[in-house]
């Protein structure tokens, strides 16, 4: 399979290779005190992001439609969103400490895409030929990317309290932390979830409006609809519980991780449900 992908889809392989290089550079930046290493990580990550974008645009051109239909296509797009959101995060917080988990997530998506390779480009059925298709899916995946990074940060927050090496990482000041400040992991997680929640809200409601125009019903309790609602409710609970005494810190981090697990199940696990046969949203690819 690898030989086939290498020969037939070199852009895909090049994107994966650049993400791997970016991951290695970010990992090296954990050890090195030289700013050059950290900058190399960012430059490689941006190059990988651009190549990922090219991969998406090329597929868009080939398919004659937005490449967001199959599981494979969505994984390639998710990989792009993860890095795009991370790039904004790195710029805002001026830290490169979290480059490794971000690149690992993105690379993980590409590796999984390799396992779920589309045999061929599928055509859009009538229900998906809607002006809502692209904004609905894009908004959701940017939201998913934000909560994925939030879960990575929450995991680091939990590990930092237990593993001295992670504790040292999160307080790195040389080379990788540009500001020299100790990052507020919980605050960053909250910001990412807040951003993700706005997008999950928008995505859920757009999906509902789209369903109305396609099938005449804005809510039919379809399994995917239900699980999208579950993700929204879990993150809604996270945002509410932050206002309750005793629910910040580790408890909040655990909810962030549970929330992401629910997101992943909503995205990838629908076929495991006993009601999957009733769903109009199970990936067939």
């Amino acid at each position: 399979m690898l030989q086939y992908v290498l020969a037939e889809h070199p852009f895909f392989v090049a994107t994966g290779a650049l993400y791997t290089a970016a991951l290695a550079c970010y990992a090296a930046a954990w050890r090195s005190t030289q700013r050059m290493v950290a900058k190399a990580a960012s430059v490689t990550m941006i190059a990988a992001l651009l190549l990922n974008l090219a991969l998406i645009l090329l597929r868009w051109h080939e398919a004659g439609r937005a490449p967001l239909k199959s599981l494979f296509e969505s994984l390639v797009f998710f990989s792009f969103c993860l890095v795009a959101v991370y790039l904004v995060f790195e710029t805002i917080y001026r830290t490169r400490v979290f480059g490794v988990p971000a690149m690992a997530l993105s690379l993980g998506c590409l590796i999984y895409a390799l396992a779920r390779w589309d045999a061929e480009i599928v055509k859009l059925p009538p229900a998906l030929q809607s002006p809502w298709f692209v904004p609905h899916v894009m908004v959701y995946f940017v939201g998913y990317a934000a909560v994925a990074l939030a879960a990575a940060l929450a995991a680091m927050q939990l590990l930092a309290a237990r593993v001295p090496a992670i504790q040292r990482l999160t307080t790195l000041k040389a080379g990788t932390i540009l500001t020299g400040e100790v990052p507020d992991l919980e605050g960053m997680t909250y910001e990412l979830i807040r951003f993700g929640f706005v997008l999950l809200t928008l995505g859920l409601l757009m999906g509902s409006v789209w369903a109305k125009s396609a099938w005449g019903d804005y809510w039919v309790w379809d399994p995917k609809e239900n699980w999208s609602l579950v993700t929204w409710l879990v993150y809604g609970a996270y945002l509410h519980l932050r206002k309750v005494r005793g629910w910040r810190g580790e408890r909040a981090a655990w909810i962030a991780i549970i929330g992401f697990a629910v997101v992943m199940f909503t995205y990838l696990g629908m076929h495991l449900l006993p009601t999957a046969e009733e769903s109009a949203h199970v990936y067939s690819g």
Partner: protein
Amino acid sequence: MALESSPAAQPGNAPAAVSAAEREVRLTSLLVTGALLAGAVLQVLVPPGGLTLVAGSALAGAVVLVASFLNPGKLRETIAGFRFTSTLLIALAIFAVLGTLVLQGKPPEFYEERYGPVAGLIRALRLDDIFHGLPFAGLMALFGAAVIASATLRWPLSWKKAGFFVCHVGLMISLAGAAASATLSIRGRIDLHAGGETASHVRVTKAGMDTGGLAPLGFDLRLDDFRLVRYETEYRIGYYEQVLERDPRTGTAHNEWRLKASFDPDREKHRLPNGDSFRLSGIWPDFAPRPNPARLGPDGTPALEPATASQEWRRPVVQAELTQGGRTREKLLPAEPPGALFIDEDRALVFEKRDKEVKAFLSTVSAIRDGERLADHARVAVNEPFTVGGWTLYQVNYNPQDPTYSGLEAVRDPGVLWVFAGFGLICAGVFYMFYVEPRLRARKAPAAART
């Protein structure tokens, strides 16, 4: 936010804060458990349904809300609090998950067949219609009361806390709209054939199933025309592998050919997933073999050679050249019926014509009432509903065996505009709360520090 700054919750009053929190936890548990239990008991008498959900939610919600306003201390503080709302959100999430574990709204015999001995329990607990039963109504009642109670705490409005209020008003408007949809909407099917067949009634459906009832449209709907649009024909070189498939129901295993990769029929050399490679050494779009006088066959007549009659893809045939471990094999492959070049027992290259998949199905309809045309040759397609005489028509079905048949869904829903208006407010409120209010507060803080 009111609860955060309530005297009992101040950091200085630690023992008092603990007892206030404990009280809140106890009252929250009592209300949520009570609502679920009361719903579970009462649903023995009241079967699930749209009306049950709406009436149950409205009644119970009103009772809780009135009680909380009459007792503005403990009860109102609790139901307007973040802890109570969080608990409800998690409880609603659990219900949403349960609804995906048991198929919803099926006839009783379906559950007997599917779930066997557990079917009785599922039906007794009404898990077969979980979102229209009284336990769910109890949760929705508490949720509605919590939304109203917490929103009213933000009154009178200020720019710095408008987001929460707008978002929660949006939630209430959406829920009210959904209640109107659940109780007042009518939906049904209209099956028509093109060429002037008319309908004056819809066959009323519930959860996608025919109820046997009819509802008058109030006009005659005529199907003028129906068109099934298909994607263009495509020819592909498919690479198939035989895989062992296990039937999840019977547990039996069988081999099945699965498409693993596909290629344009071009002259480039392609690598296959198994590591071999192939190219097409000849492509004849309109295959018509010609005799070649220079080459004679065994019987002495000129041998036939592949050729094409035109460049149009009418009867395409390709010559596939497979390179396998340094050795090359060739074979002529027609597209119809699909020709296969077997790589080994479990792998094959197949030249095939793809089925023309359906791209769109479109109805053209006219609506006539008392001789007056309400709509003339209006188009109805998937994602392009058409509204006439208070009904919205959706294109939902076609029959590949009957090109004149069109299946339409007619919906009359007085709640939908309220639902969507609420959606708009929710989005605006959430965005304002998270991204505008913090800036307003940040701007206010330095000004306060200067004074």
